[in-house]
């Protein structure tokens, strides 16, 4: 089973300047997984990207991985 928290963590840590400040949490039900991403204040722009391009790509990848788990996902960046 894909570990979506781990996947989101790897993606986020690879993009930010302060990987140690990356925190991922998730709430899981039978049908869906809600993931929350926290990064250092200065790194929020890095995970969102210009016109949201980076967060959109992150969501696409996480969504693809969630197909195997048979659940819908949602990724939110908390500030």
């Amino acid at each position: 089973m894909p570990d979506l928290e781990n996947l989101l963590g790897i993606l986020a840590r690879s993009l930010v300047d302060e990987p140690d400040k990356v925190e991922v949490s998730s709430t899981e039900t039978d049908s869906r997984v809600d993931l929350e991403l926290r990064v250092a204040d200065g790194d929020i722009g890095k995970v969102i990207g210009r016109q949201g391009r980076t967060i959109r790509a992150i969501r696409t990848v996480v969504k693809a991985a969630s197909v195997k788990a048979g659940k819908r996902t949602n990724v939110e960046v908390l500030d």
Partner: protein
Amino acid sequence: MREFYAATVDEAVLRAAAALNIAPDRLSYEVVDPGGAGFLGIGAKDARINVRLGETLPPSPTIEAPRETETVDATTRDSAISEEDANAVDTSHAEDERTPQEPVTPELLSEVKALVTSLVEAMSLNARIDVYESDDEIAVDVASPETGLFIGQKGETIDSLQYLVNVAVYKDRPFAKRIVLDAEGYRQRRIEAIQGIAHRTARKAIRERRSVELPPMSAPERRVVHVYLKDNPQVNTMSEGTGYNRRVTISPAEL
């Protein structure tokens, strides 16, 4: 020794010849992988050759690459290729005249491999990952029994991963070569599919004497359309719309 690849061995030889400015029949090379069309495009892979650089004859600067029509010259006849499309990060294997300033180091290649491997594992895909430097890119070939999941609809997953890997790898280092993810020859097949759409839509535009819109495409995909129809005097191409809705319109030249 330098590696080149394309859909077929012949094309790879032409590509190598063009890049090295050496006549194709003077190249000394060995076939690494003869490639294959696969079955219905499944299992298709690139042909790869290794060119022995030392054994080639001196370059003759007058040789024109026979098949390098893919290179876009923004100043050519068709000004319809917008700045954005012409400069688009190209997902095709087209030649590019840019010479990268930064060398591709073994450390860079292993960092790319490590990142892609960890991502693919976290997606719980079984995959064999092959990273190598080709003429104009860092090629990452992902071989997996679950290629469909890795590529996604219209390539959205592989394109997203490719974008993220490029951003992550070049975050703290100067840009060397674009990192291109591929699986089972997907990139080449996608280019051919888009060329087929462009061809049929151009015929429709001519037959019906009206402009016909293509579905929205990414910049490199739109570029494939512009370049493919550049030499067709019967039609003009133009990109219209903004953001994710940007699409190519094909119009008959007479309009």
